């Protein structure tokens, strides 16, 4: 299965790599963006291509998206830090919706929980057949349930409250979800903020230093939120 997926991905990915090697960054971006379900490596490569295209804000957006899949990737952390250096004094980056997501993906945590569940179940059945105490298995099973539930909530939180990045130009943050609402502060391009909720074409966001406000949905970008705006919304 994995082999088939890799085979299906190989075409545009190789094209993108060739274009990247040749210095044709737009072609590399186009090739990699054509991948339907990009994994962490593809998103990272997209970040690199945007960085080379002198678009550090989008590079940061792709790197943050890649970090959901590869939180412990040293290359990713390094390149993200380099791209942030190119930005014009953005606020501190927002943390992932769950702090543990900075170290482990929801999938990895889910697999760990499933492993605990499976071991608890198997050992429990075995011990019961042998008429032996099965408290250890019960604890593993219970922990497995807790871990799986945590992972499920993590997936849900990452979908509901993703970290998004302001791209192209600065974003005006308003007091409420109305275009004529009072402006509270301005986020420069490259600012990494977390979405709290959405309402009437606005996102309620929280910055890394705890400031809250509403920005138009088109002002920010992240994978899964639709195409990145290339013009002012």
């Amino acid at each position, binding site marked *: 299965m994995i082999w088939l997926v890799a085979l299906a991905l190989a075409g545009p990915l190789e094209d993108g790599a060739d274009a990247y090697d040749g210095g044709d960054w737009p072609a590399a971006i186009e090739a990699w963006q054509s991948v339907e379900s990009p994994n962490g490596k593809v998103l990272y490569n997209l970040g690199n291509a945007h960085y080379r295209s002198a678009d550090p804000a989008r590079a940061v957006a792709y790197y943050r998206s890649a970090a959901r899949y590869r939180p412990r990737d040293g290359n990713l952390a390094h390149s993200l830090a380099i791209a942030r250096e190119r930005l014009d004094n953005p606020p501190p980056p927002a943390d992932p919706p769950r702090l543990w997501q900075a170290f482990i993906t929801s999938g990895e945590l889910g697999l760990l929980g499933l492993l605990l569940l499976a071991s608890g*179940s198997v050992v429990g059945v075995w011990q*019961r057949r042998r008429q032996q105490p099965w408290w250890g298995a019960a604890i593993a099973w219970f922990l497995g349930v807790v871990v799986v539930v945590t992972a499920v909530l993590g997936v849900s939180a990452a979908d509901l409250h993703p970290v998004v990045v302001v791209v192209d130009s600065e974003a005006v943050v308003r007091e409420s979800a109305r275009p004529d609402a009072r402006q509270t502060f301005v986020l420069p391009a490259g600012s990494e903020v977390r979405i709290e909720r959405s309402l009437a074409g606005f996102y309620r966001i929280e910055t890394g230093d705890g400031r809250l406000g509403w920005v138009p949905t088109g002002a920010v970008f992240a994978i899964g939120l639709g195409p990145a705006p290339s013009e002012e919304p």
Partner: protein
Amino acid sequence: MVRFFFVITALFVSVPALAQRVQLSLQATEVEALQTVGLVVSVIDYKRAVRPPSLVVHPDVTVEFSTDREGMEMSGQGIVRTVQFIYAATPQREGTFTLGPADIVVDGVTLTTNSVQLTVKPRTLTADTPELEAYAEFEQTEVYEGQIVLYRYGLRSRRRIYRDQWVRPPMARLQSPRDGLPVTTEYVIDDPTGPLYVKQNHQALLATAPGDLGQIPATAIVSLAVGSPDRFRIRRTQDVTIVTDPSPLTVLSLPPAPPGFTGLVGDFEFTGSLNRTRVRAGDSVTFTVDVVGDGSLEGFALPEAPEVDGVSFYDNMVGADARISEGKYVAQGRWQRVIVGTKRGVAQVPPVSIVSFSPSRQRYVTHELVIEPITVRPGDESEADVESFSEADSDADGVVIDTDIRPIYRAWRASTLPTLPWLLGAAVLLGLPGLWVAVSSGVGVLRRRREGRERPVDSPLVRLRGVAVGDPERLAVLDATLRACLANCTPDGQPSSLPDDSLAADVRAALAELGRVRFAGGVLPEDLDSRAVALCTRLDGLPEVTS
């Protein structure tokens, strides 16, 4: 003949560099003919026991194995084992002799030591030689400005030296270098006229200004042993004050310096090495420059890197230190020039030219370190400037912290996040067996509890039926059964609490008779047995009293 014995010098004198696995050293490099001096073979960092090597030396120098000493040393890798084999070397005539090298088998590998030189002077020591001599002098009387000179001062005594305190000259315009701490050496020379105790100090000094920097005499207050130890093994000592001769020193000015003079004064050896010659654009190679010499390396830096198309340079000092070893000042250091390929092609980097002043040649010398051409292959080319480098961990390539992004991934297999339905479905599937165990076990526990509540309580009569008439235990069991039946149907276990007075009287009488028979001795009468059994049966039929 008086057998010699040696006072072992401080370990750091004999084992100056832990990087060397085997080393040959002399406790004194200058002796008189027929004097005996310690020749030390040091083995550092070994695992299996090492045998003393057989030393091949000059035919005019007699060498005999004396003793060995094992110890531990701290090194960069932790604590390592060391052993020193000490030989007695006795030159038979004056001259200069080269001792060693020696081959030693350490952990199955044959290692070769360095060789050492022993200078032997004609005999001057006689029985009339003063008991104590002090000296203080510079190793050289004429040095150049910026050169390191060693100030040597010490004592030679016929009697054991217990303590010495020195008042040295002020050493104006002579400065202690940052590296190369003073060293004290203490040993015994075995002489035909008797043992000679030697205590010697070396101090490195940097001549900072030209002129006459001769120093006034130094003064030493020395405690020497007197006679034999008393009955409590306490030695008496005698304090002696002794003054040395003045120590002349002339510091010469350096000739006019050529362009690019680095400020190094001394005889140095430079070696340069490149870790690789092919590199991806954006990656780096490291050109390492190693320096060894007898001058100070303080303030030294590689000459400014030239502008070369296709590469950029970043210099980094790895480290430098110095020590005094066998009466010489030895400085060594390492510098690195990190060369980053910025454009594909072959980069011709000009050699590194280092100009120093050599006191032995009395002129400036230029050391040329050639760098091989560097081939820069296509990679993550970038116009971005690399701003700083620092030493990385254990990477042999001298990996540096770059300020460019890392290369793209070319292997596409990667994990993806499991979707919520997949995660939940798998959890249910894998968790169900465990849930079944928990539920079924819980049901089992509940069932057992319910069965436990419905099970009738065993009557006290059951035990009585198990003991036959005539059994020696029958009397005790009968008494206990009657009391148990009484306790079951009365709140306080007393016959008076029984509802029927005649029954109560019968029970009381039966208990009394049973007690009498039990404690006064005797045989249980048959009628008492049958009466008691009948009473037990009656009491067992009464309703149970619950508290």
